[in-house]
């Protein structure tokens, strides 16, 4: 296992919630996961990566919905395929596209799920979960098929949080929520994690939100874990600096910049040029020369702070 995947600091072996080792999954000719390995301790963990990185496939393997072709995946020390039933008893899950019994009201649906989870006093549990996602008033009388996308997302979250499971796995949980809903959602995660000791694994594209709640991050790309570790540790390991520039015209400048030895990665976003550099002094010295050579003018230049987003972009090389 690569050294950067090892967990240092607070993690002890008995605190590991998820352990994935050399996981490979193929869908026909497509290799969705390639020898994926990581460990996730208690707390709130983020699973991040671009589309097609293998996040949903990993989550489905953890839930026992997919069988790995090779390797091993364990949750609470139990095999995800063979002991799936036991694991599912401890997990709350929100899939990327949640589906429900649409003919029921939200409350009736959650009562049903409570019964299926074997919870005592299912009506109470359902009401509690609905109030957590602030859906109690709408959910009483309206059938799920009449819900908006945001309400369905909240219902899915309520289902995942039902009965306060030991681990909650959320696949793109905030994709349909409005800004207020997202803030409330982050508060719920913080509260459950700190007060009830619930562990979370959250897959999301919205990195600033993940950064607010995550203690631990697994960064994936092309079916592999590029980095895994505590967020603070990973951010402190960033030795490069990311600059954001607005250059006009940028085409020749970008071409020239790509040839510079100190440039680790470079990418474009609309009018902006992002460059990750190893040696900042070299970059500062060479920048005027390059601009002159490209006959371009520099309109903006800013240094990006260390964030999950910059870690993500740096690791993926844009």
């Amino acid at each position, binding site marked *: 296992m690569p050294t950067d995947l090892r967990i240092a600091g607070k993690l002890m072996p008995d605190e590991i919630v998820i352990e994935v080792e050399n996981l490979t999954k193929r869908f026909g000719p497509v290799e969705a996961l390639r020898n994926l390995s990581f460990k996730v301790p208690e707390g709130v963990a983020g699973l991040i990566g671009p589309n097609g990185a293998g996040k949903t496939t990993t989550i489905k393997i953890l*839930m026992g*919905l997919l069988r790995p072709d090779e390797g091993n995946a364990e949750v609470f020390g139990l095999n995800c395929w063979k002991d799936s*039933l036991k694991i599912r008893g401890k997990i709350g899950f929100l899939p990327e596209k949640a*589906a429900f*019994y649409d003919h*029921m009201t939200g409350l009736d649906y959650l009562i*049903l799920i409570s*019964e*299926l*989870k074997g919870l005592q006093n299912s009506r109470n549990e359902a009401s509690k979960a609905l109030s957590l996602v602030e859906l109690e008033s709408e959910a009483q009388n309206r059938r799920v098929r009449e819900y908006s996308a945001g309400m369905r997302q909240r219902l899915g979250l309520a289902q995942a949080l039902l009965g306060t499971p030991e681990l909650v796995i959320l696949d793109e949980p905030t994709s349909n929520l409005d800004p207020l809903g997202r803030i409330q959602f982050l508060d719920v995660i913080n509260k459950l994690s700190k007060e009830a000791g619930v562990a979370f694994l959250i897959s999301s594209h919205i990195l600033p939100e993940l950064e607010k709640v995550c203690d631990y991050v697994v960064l994936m790309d092309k079916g592999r874990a590029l980095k895994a570790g505590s967020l603070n540790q990973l951010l402190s390991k960033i030795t490069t600096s990311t600059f954001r520039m607005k250059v006009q015209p940028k085409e020749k400048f970008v071409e020239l910049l790509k040839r510079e030895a100190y440039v680790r990665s470079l990418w474009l976003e609309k009018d902006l040029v992002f460059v990750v550099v190893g040696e900042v002094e070299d970059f500062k010295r060479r920048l005027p020369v390059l601009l002159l050579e490209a006959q371009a003018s520099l309109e903006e230049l800013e240094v990006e702070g260390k964030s999950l987003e910059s870690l993500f972009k740096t690791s993926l090389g844009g």
Partner: protein
Amino acid sequence: MKFSSLLKAETERVWSRPVLELTSILVFLLSLSVAPLVSVIPPDRLQAEIFSKIVGFITLYADSLTLFLGLICAVLGTLSFAKDYEQGLLQTLLSLPLSRSLVFVSKLIAVTVPITLIAWVTMVFSLSLSFYFALDIVFRTAFYVLPIIFIISLLSFSLATLISLLAKRILPSILASTASILILFMISNPPMATLGDFRYLAYTPLRAPVMTLIRVFGESYFGSNVLEALPETGTLLTLSLTYALVPLFFAFLYFTRKLEIKQ
């Protein structure tokens, strides 16, 4: 508790409006269309003659029902699995602490038991209207048709489930399931000329259950020589059950052991 809750939810969903209403009306119309084929006899006739007429109605009804029952079970079975797979409800259910066997059995019962009861109750109702003076014979004979309707439903559901689990898409599953039922119906309904044809029919998947019924009653609207040409009741029943249970077994095995949610 888990099973009853899931079964209730599945049944309500499968038979939500207008599926229940439409199915009931269609089955009732079907039973009325068969009723005039059996000439209604006056109440003062011999018990044996009344029995013969009732049996004639029941077997004709069961015979006509096979295609309709087959198609409705195929569609509902497909929706239960392929639609749930495609739309994500199957993923939701399989993410809960429920065994896959429990999910499968709930879906099976939610489709087959209500359709069997609808078809049976409709038949008993139509029979009771025509033979109100011999209700004891009606109920005695109707009792035997219940498992036969269930076997026909089970066969159609099993085929549809197996196809849906393999295809995993609604449209191809519905097309393949209904096509398979139509093919079974065609091979079970060739032009009949000789006793050999009837022997052949007894071995076809959709006619074997009806032939079992004819054997049980010891009466045939095709004539007594047809009855003598048929295999024994036990053989016919075993055959009917085998046709229904073999695809069901493979569907169950695939669902509980192999199915992956790739959608």
